[in-house]
């Protein structure tokens, strides 16, 4: 049984101009210990998917529905707010994009770690502080003991993100969601943080949903990728499969617009023309059609259904892109 199972997740937001379908029927499974990448451009619904799973979508104006959304057998949508608070931080945790702002500036690092330990593991006083030191140690913060009394502004961006990871993993969650966790960091630090997450989650068998718009990062870290566009998963597959045989016009476009440092080709980068669709209006055909470079005649006639391209690899595309 998969650790996380999401079926037909829909998240809508009521606005003055109409209902925004931010997530529109997303389904996937996440196995234990698996690292799943969620890629797509801004507004494709990656973050809202994550927030929906965490039950952090404000309702109203938001509205989250799904045929099923279970974490380790627990029906996440059926939880009351108080029950959801118990699950958040202990069985699933999330880290955010901006490490400069995801720690409270007026509380010490130690306090922010021990607070969570106290909340979920009833650890207090000396025991909590010892555990906090251990945690900071594991994420590679030198002189951890002395750092407990430090404030976030005394840390660099990379160190803060390490602290966030320490806090997120403090109660050994089964699921870790990282929302653009390395986007705000420079490349060398990015690599360190990715290694850290990889190491810690492999050690503990934690499943990870890694949200990014950086295909390079996803390629180096994830086991499987979901490509999202306009609130839906348009292609999903094991990392190698998907990179070798992109089977959706959008995935192809994403790859064409990503610079590669390992390739020998001198090809030009091709941007994806146009803008993502307005999520208020219903989208009867393929949402990517207006921007697609590989569309076929059938695309104008009917919406694409998911097609199988390999083991665990499918795409909702009518064009035949396979070489």
């Amino acid at each position, binding site marked *: 049984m998969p650790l996380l199972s999401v079926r037909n997740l829909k998240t809508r937001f009521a606005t003055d101009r109409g209902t925004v379908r931010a997530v529109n029927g997303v389904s996937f499974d996440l196995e234990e210990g698996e690292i799943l990448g969620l890629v797509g451009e801004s507004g494709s619904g990656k973050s809202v998917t994550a927030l929906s799973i965490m039950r952090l979508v404000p309702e109203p104006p938001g509205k989250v529905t799904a045929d099923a959304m279970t974490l380790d057998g627990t029906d996440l949508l059926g939880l009351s707010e108080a029950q959801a608070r118990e699950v958040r931080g202990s069985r699933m945790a999330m880290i955010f994009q901006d490490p400069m702002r995801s720690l409270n500036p*007026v509380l010490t690092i130690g306090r922010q770690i021990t*607070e969570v330990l106290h909340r979920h593991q009833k650890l207090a006083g000396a025991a909590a*502080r*010892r555990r906090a030191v251990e945690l900071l140690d594991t994420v590679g913060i030198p*002189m951890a*003991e002395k750092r407990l009394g430090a404030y976030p502004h005394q840390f660099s961006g990379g160190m803060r993100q390490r602290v966030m990871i320490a806090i997120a993993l403090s109660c050994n969650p089964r699921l870790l969601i990282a929302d653009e966790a390395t986007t705000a960091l420079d490349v060398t630090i990015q690599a360190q943080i990715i290694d850290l997450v990889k190491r810690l989650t492999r050690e503990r068998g934690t499943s990870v949903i890694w949200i990014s718009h950086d295909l390079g990062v996803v390629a180096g870290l994830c086991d499987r990728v979901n490509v999202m566009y306009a609130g839906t998963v348009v292609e999903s597959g094991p990392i190698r499969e998907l990179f070798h045989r992109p089977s959706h016009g959008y995935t192809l476009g994403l790859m064409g617009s990503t610079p590669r440092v390992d390739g020998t080709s001198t090809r030009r980068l091709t941007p994806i023309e146009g803008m993502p669709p307005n999520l208020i209006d219903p989208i009867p055909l393929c949402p990517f059609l207006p921007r697609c470079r590989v569309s076929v005649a059938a695309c104008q006639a009917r919406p694409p259904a998911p097609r199988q391209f390999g083991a665990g690899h499918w795409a909702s595309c009518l064009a035949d892109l396979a070489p």
Partner: protein
Amino acid sequence: MAVVQSPPPVAAPRIAGSLRLAARQFPRHRAAMVGLICLALICLAAALAPWVAPYDPIQIKLSAKLKPPSFEHWMGTDHFGRDVFSRLLYGGRTSLSVGLLVVGFAFVMGVPLGLASGYFGKRIDNLLMRLVDAFLTFPPLLLAVALVGLLGPDIQNVMLALGLVQAPVLARMVRGSTLAVREDVYVTAARALGAGPARIVLSHLLRNVMSPIVVQLTIVFAAAVVAEASLSFLGFGTQPPQPSWGRDMSEARRFLGDAPWMFLAPTGAIMLCVLSINFMGDGLRDALDPRAWRTRRTIGQAER
């Protein structure tokens, strides 16, 4: 980069509470310390008035009226021959307690209202803020006069009225700051780690809106002392011949040309208090914001 050599610590290191660290920071702010000492001295003098005042503050002695400062009367005498210095000491009891109690009342009323409004939003926010708006539509002094008129002219009622006038101002300000802080990523991050409303409001929102609150409260104090004067002048609040800084100040107005000391003494006292409190507010604001700390030691050593 990973640090491997970490023997399990024998004794868990202590994390000094943020508030305790802030308390240690405060004395480093020189102006704030001067303010604190000044205000403490003034309060002490007012509290000890019956023992340190050289004369009875309401004893009339017409033969000695409007005398300039001398060894006998350090700050001169007023139009009834009363000793200005003694009246200053006794008046401080009224004025300072009005100022401090109004600050306390505004804090206790205004801050929870503002936090609730800003955090819960929507209907609660609407309800509370319309209430606040209703209070804010009246000119503050007029509202205070109306309230005192309703409750009866008495110094306790003056404090209550002034507190009721100031609380909505504070509530509105706290709400504004809360709305801004609420959207910060660390609040979402805290929620993602299972923090409930109480935790978020108390340890995240309140701590981060403290600075503007402190600044506002110093203003409230000054406004309260002056407003008490106005109310006393209008016949509410302190009744003659009881001394209060505000009362004495407005009475001295008539003798500004002949006996400026009568005016300068209470005015100076009010000014000194307000300045002291402003300085303290500055220091307090900096002490509550770790980013403004002047650290002489390096990272992490602060917990010693």
